[in-house]
């Protein structure tokens, strides 16, 4: 170790706009009511893999630790099972806060490069938006190509086997009348929803 880094937090390290922006997103209003009881972390089936338990994320969000929250894997591990939201004694929609954080991270590109969770989310969205349906083999292939193509070689045998047995379809799936779906989805582009002004 040739350098010593500062771990103490100055108030200047916090982003005062972070909490208001998250709280402005519907579902996240009650963030301030958190009493830091840890029920969310205890009930979370994935907290065993998280570098910060959801409880800590809640605390860091409301007091403006944006960089720290965005550097954590917690939001990306959240599988949206909603157990925390169901159990929270203050009825905070913890899962909604996780979604809000994911959205913010994607919008502001605040995630590790080639981070598979984000690539998966983006590719999934692109595919569904374009075709109206999702095709597993195409999605998985794109995910691996964009993140870790070595992994693709590893998984190739399993993929071929699945195709051979008819579990994966190589043909892209399309819905009928795709133009209508595009029209619906483009509506939002033409008439963007007014953004709630952060406090």
């Amino acid at each position, binding site marked *: 170790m040739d350098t010593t880094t500062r*771990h*103490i*937090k*100055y*108030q*200047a390290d916090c982003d005062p706009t972070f909490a208001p922006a998250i709280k402005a997103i519907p579902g996240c209003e*009650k963030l*301030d*009511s*958190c*009493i*830091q009881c840890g029920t969310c972390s205890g009930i979370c089936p994935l907290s065993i893999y998280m570098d910060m338990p959801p*409880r*800590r994320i809640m*605390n*860091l969000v409301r*007091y403006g*630790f944006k960089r*720290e929250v965005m550097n954590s894997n917690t939001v990306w591990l959240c599988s949206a099972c909603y157990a925390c939201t169901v159990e929270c004694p*203050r009825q905070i929609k913890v899962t909604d806060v996780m979604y809000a954080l994911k959205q913010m991270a994607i919008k502001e590109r605040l995630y590790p490069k080639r981070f598979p969770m984000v690539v998966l989310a983006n590719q999934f969205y692109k595919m569904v938006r374009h075709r109206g349906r999702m095709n597993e083999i195409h999605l998985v292939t794109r995910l691996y190509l964009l993140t870790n193509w070595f992994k693709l070689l590893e998984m190739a045998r399993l993929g071929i086997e699945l195709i051979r047995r008819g579990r994966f379809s190589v043909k892209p799936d399309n819905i009928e009348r795709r133009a209508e779906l595009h029209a619906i989805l483009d509506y939002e582009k033409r008439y963007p929803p007014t953004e709630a002004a952060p406090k």
Partner: protein
Amino acid sequence: MTGIPNTDGNGRRGAAGEEIRIGFYVCHCGMNIASLVDVAAVAKEAAKLPHVIVSREYKYMCSDPGQEFIMQDIRENRLNRIVVAACSPNLHESTFRGAVARGGINPYFFQMVNIREHGSWVHTDAAAATAKAIDQVRAAVARVAKHRPLERRRMEVNQAVLIVGGGIAGITAALNLADAGKKVYLVEREPTIGGHMAKYDKTFPTLDCAACILTPKMSAVREHPNITLWTYSEVTKVDGHVGKFKVTVRRKPRYIDEETCVGCLECISACVFKTPKFEDEFNEGLGKRKPIYIPFPQAVPPLVTIDPETCLKFKTGKCKSPCETVCDRKAVDFSQTEKTEEIEVGAVIVATGFKAFDVTRLPIYGYGLYDNVYTALEVERMVTSSGPTGGEITLRDGRVPKSIGIIHCVGSRDKKTNRWCSRVCCMYSLKLAHLLREHTGADVYQFYIDMRCPGKGYDEFYERMLDEGVQMIRGRAAEVTDWTMSPEEEGKLVVRVEDTLAAYVRRIPVDMVVLSTGMEPAVGADEIRRMFNISCSTEGFFLEKHPKLAPVETATAGVFIAGCCQGPKDIPDTVAQAGAAAAQALALIDKGYVEMEPNTSYIDPDDCSGCKSCIPLCPYHAIAFDEGSKKAVINEALCTGCGTCVASCPSGSISQNLFEDDQIFSEIEEVLSHV
């Protein structure tokens, strides 16, 4: 029914010459005793003992049928002594004494044997436990034969009550008792009643204004015909005992005639000091007052007071005393001297309150070093519209704070200062956070160890503060410093803390620091304690007789405690406790008499050598020395039967009823008979 006399008048002889006929009863206590002790064997052995006429066992001796056995046997078998082997006498001695008395014999012709707490509950060997129970029974049977009839004594009770301390506890107790028609003397050390509560702005969790709810009660005290209010006064001496305390009160001169002053305050404006110059104690030193002053506009009584320490008339004698000339009622009286009042009361309620922790004991928080570090009480005065700043939150340099840190547990939960939790600090800190935000719009940080909000509406208040955006940082603030490490910290105070929930060490720059101080026993609590013979816990708070079942009584009969002198508590609890103390005092004096247990000590004057060794040993000050006869005299009304004097008397001239030498020796002989 035989002619056993209940008493011969002096309560120490009686029943002499009568044939002794003992009834013995052993209780199963369900299975509590019978599961280990062979109760049938105990009854069988007891039947063989001398003078035992009846020996029975029964499932529940304390039940109505059990008691009926005793009464019936006394009548039918002409019994004149009863022994019951059952649970602890603490539980049922009075029950069985009652049954014995209803059966027609003196209730002190009774002895109880504890074979539950001293037997079945603490042993595992059934045979040994049974043998022990039989030994205990044999001792009791031998002892009860030596018992003498005794009478409980009655003593008249004075109908007045003294209340020491005029805070919300004293005020509440005084009004309750006065409304019940009792004479109340309320003695307060300060020039006004109201105590700490009068200094507060709003009260948690409802945020109702303290003055709005307190001042009507203060005026009610002043106007109540049954209350004699002595402010600026202190209790200096207490003599006597329950039902008849003789109390001396010193009344300090305020150099104002209390009868004629109407509180017009003309004299204050006339004072030669045109501007207030001296530290104002009521405003925690944040404001200034003149030598002639009134603590606050709603003070009760609404009288001005002259402080001889600062008044020029007293210091130099050269003042033209415009205060005296301007008063058209001639109420200013520089010749006033200290007065002493002597009163007699039946009961006393001590409600001397608390003192806030002295923050200079914790230099790490920078109080006195940095101008913008305040105590909670100072901020309390500052947010009050009638306070020194008129409700404006301005720092000592005139700025309005944009960020405020409130540090909890200052002088609490800390073995280096006070190890207890003061119970109210979390809540008042949250309240101050609300008020400070309301007044300034500042960001407020709470530095807390644990958020303790138990009480009706308290946790809801905490949630409300969370929702209002008060930042909660869990961690004991380590230090307050003006040493800056980043540009944003310039000109600010920095609180260093480990945010244990965020798991970061943080530096939080703030404009103002508020120290939430804990509670300590009031100044002078120790003298009060000695005067009224109240014991205290290690921290100095007055000790109640029982922490759960006798929370307002003390070990001294007739002395009750209420409010923070007993331990830190908030206003609702204080008022509830004051009401309880008033009810207990009322129950005592309204009955008109007190009944005393007869197990008191008595001195045989022929044997007493007058050595006085017993006198300082008596914890209840019950022994006096009669200069005429040169003998010690025990005041039966004060004696609680602790036995200390009996054991200490070098000439063996002191005996104790129910614990006479022959009774105890016969008991010991029987216990050891098979050794």
